Each structure stands twice: as structure tokens, then as C-alpha cells.
């Protein structure tokens, strides 16, 4: 940097700062301690479709009308309370048009370090949200095809469960199982939960319902894949699986199923 340039950089004045902020291609604004807007750059004004004079002095939440406005989720409040920069995703409502944004709020201090309000900038994330939606649909598809019911033996069906069990998935599992029972006249169903990410109360609830439904179809249900961690978490959560038969491994469960069906596996002489 030459001396000349240094001087001009030091001389950065209010006008230049305003120009920079106005030409920064994303909305930027600041509020005072009463959440009244004290500054908004040009893209922010354009987004709201309002003149600066009409914006200044208004409460930010009356103009933005986002999901976070006037709730504990408001990052502007959080940033002012904690003194830390906060980023979150949100949706703003301008004239009934919803735009997904990611906004970052930070506390605003004066030269003496006194908190005088907060500042915020927002980025339009419409594209990102669309991509995520696509990803979500894909993961749902993967989930849908990842609940196969396998006929392991005459009268024994195995259903390995992987990933996250939500209510939609639990319904699918239930349907898959009941249909399979009907098709194969299975007498024993083994539900293997070794690959379930976490067995919380909601998942346990689904599992209990599934075992009840299989019982109604005249079929026994064994839950296998009870690792020490799963067992401990069920105890902590206070979940009583009642009279549902459980096993630590699929192998044990199969052994039990054979015993229940009076089958014996023998080594050939």
C-alpha cells in the first residue's frame, strides 16, 4: 500500500461507508435498544419496497413479520442479550410473499463500548432451501426402500430396521410386516433394531405398536439387536416393553425362533 492510499483509507468517511453499505448486495440494517430501525441499506429498502424515511423509527418486527419476530427465537434479541453473533434461518413475510433467509445478528456498541442496539444482515436462501427439499425427498425415498421384509425360513420373517424411525416410516414397517405375515403365514417375526440411530420414546412407542399388531395376526414378534446401550437407554427412559421377547443379536433371535417352532439345527454326521 502506498502512503497516499493509506491516507485515503484512513479518511474513510461517513459518506463512503454509507455508499459501501448501500451497494453491498444484501439487506443490512441496525436497530436501537427498543428494536426501532436506525439504519437500513438500499437492498433492505428495496426488499421492503419502502422509502428510508418511512422505515426509520419503525419496529423491525412490524416490517419483517418473520417467524422469529417477537418470539424467544429472535436472534437480534439473543445477540443483544448474550453479546454474541447469532445466525439462524428464517422466513420473512413481505406483502404475503414468503422468502426463506439466513440472517446474522450482532450486538451494536458505541465508541465507549455501550450497547446501543443491534445490527443484522440477511441472505436470500431460496435456492438452498429448494436443494435441501430435494435431498430430503431423496432420503425419504431411501428410507422407503430400506425396510425390506425377508423370509428367512419357513414361517420366519426378518425385518431389519435402519436409520431413523418416524411415524411415517413406522406405518410403512407395520404395513410391510402385516402384509408379509399374511403372504407367508409367518408365525415368527424378528424385528432387528441394531441399525436404529436412537431408540427414544417415540421409536419405542412405534415398536410396541408394531409388536401388538403382529400379535393380533397370530404371529410372534422378537425384537433383536438390543445392544447394552439400547437396553440402558430404555431403562433410563422408563420404557416397559411388556411381554415383548427381546434378544441382543439376530443370531440369538433366530435360535429362539427355531426353538419356539420346535426346529433343531443339527450338524450332518
Amino acid at each position: 500500500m502506498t502512503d497516499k492510499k493509506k491516507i485515503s483509507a484512513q479518511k474513510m468517511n461517513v459518506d463512503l461507508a454509507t455508499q459501501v453499505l448501500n451497494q453491498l448486495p444484501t439487506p443490512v440494517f441496525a436497530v436501537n435498544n427498543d428494536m426501532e430501525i436506525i439504519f437500513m441499506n438500499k437492498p433492505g429498502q428495496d426488499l421492503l419496497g419502502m422509502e428510508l424515511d418511512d422505515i426509520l423509527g419503525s419496529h423491525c418486527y412490524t416490517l419483517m413479520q418473520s417467524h422469529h419476530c417477537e418470539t424467544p427465537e429472535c436472534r437480534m434479541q439473543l445477540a443483544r442479550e448474550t453479546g454474541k453473533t447469532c445466525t439462524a434461518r428464517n422466513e420473512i413475510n413481505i406483502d404475503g410473499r414468503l422468502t426463506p433467509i439466513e440472517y446474522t445478528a450482532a450486538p451494536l456498541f458505541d465508541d465507549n463500548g455501550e450497547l446501543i442496539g443491534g445490527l443484522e444482515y440477511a441472505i436470500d436462501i431460496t435456492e438452498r432451501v429448494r436443494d435441501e427439499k430435494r435431498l430430503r425427498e431423496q432420503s425419504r425415498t431411501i428410507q422407503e426402500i430400506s425396510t425390506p421384509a425377508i423370509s428367512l425360513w419357513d414361517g420366519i420373517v426378518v425385518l431389519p430396521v435402519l436409520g431413523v424411525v418416524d411415524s411415517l416410516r413406522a406405518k410403512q414397517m407395520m404395513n410391510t410386516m402385516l402384509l408379509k405375515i399374511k403372504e407367508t403365514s409367518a408365525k415368527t417375526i424378528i424385528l432387528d433394531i441394531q441399525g436404529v440411530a436412537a431408540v427414544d420414546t417415540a421409536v419405542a412407542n412405534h415398536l410396541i405398536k408394531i409388536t401388538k399388531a403382529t400379535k393380533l395376526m397370530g404371529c410372534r414378534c422378537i425384537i433383536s439387536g438390543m445392544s447394552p446401550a439400547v437396553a440402558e437407554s430404555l431403562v433410563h427412559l422408563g420404557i416397559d416393553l411388556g411381554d415383548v421377547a427381546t434378544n441382543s443379536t439376530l443370531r440369538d433371535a433366530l435360535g429362539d425362533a427355531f426353538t419356539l417352532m420346535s426346529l433343531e439345527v443339527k450338524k450332518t454326521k
Partner: protein
Amino acid sequence: MMRLRQNEIVDESRIELVDISDAGAAIGAARHMAAAIGFEETDQYLIATAVSELATNMIKYAGRGELTVRFIRNEERDGFEVMAIDSGPGIKNVEKAMQEHFSTGDSLGLGLPGVKRIMDELYIESRSGSGTQCVARKWRDCDA
């Protein structure tokens, strides 16, 4: 405001929850964080289960929200912290929600008391109609 934190944040990761399939990401992040803190496998799973419980609750009752898992540290020990914030309808009666077998939805009503049992600390702040904030912590090598 929730009691101010006296703990240093060593690392944190934030997960936006808008769909139940995001719970998987929250569970994964929790496990990963718990492993980084040095919790044993069983504890990792327990922590992930507690986080899963909070995430499932949030999506079920508020529709969406945000979950942050943290590696925290104070003068004495390291620990895991999860913070769940949503702007849903809020919990009408926090005391009641903490009771065994109390549920307003169609569930076992064991969730929050279960989280409390798994974790060492659980704070819930909720105003009916304007969201809920839950903070739960579990310390390493600490028998609560």
C-alpha cells in the same frame, strides 16, 4: 432468560430441524460430539437418545426449530450441552410435562422425564404461545 452459562464452549454444531428426517442429523451430530468429548460408547448412545427425544418433541409439537450441540468445559470438567429452541405453541405446564406418563399428544409421556434421567441437568423455559427453550447438560465422569 435461561441462567447464564459459566462454561466455555469448546466446539459446537447447529442443526436446523424442519422435518422429522432432520432428527437423524441431530442424532448423528450428538453422537459425534459426545465421542469428541470422550464419553464412552454407552453414554454416547444415551446422549444421542436424549437429543433424539428433544428433536422429536420439537418437530412434533412446534413443527420446526433449531438444535445446538456443544462441547462445554468449566474449571472442573468437560461436558455435553444441547440447546433446543423453537417458536411453537410452547409447553403449557412445564411441571406437568415433566411428570411420568403425562402426554398431550399420542405418546408414552416418558420423553422429558427420560431426558432428565439421562442427562445431569435439564432446564426448560416456555411461555405458552411463544416458544420453548430447553437446555440439557451431561458432564463426563459425574454421577448425578
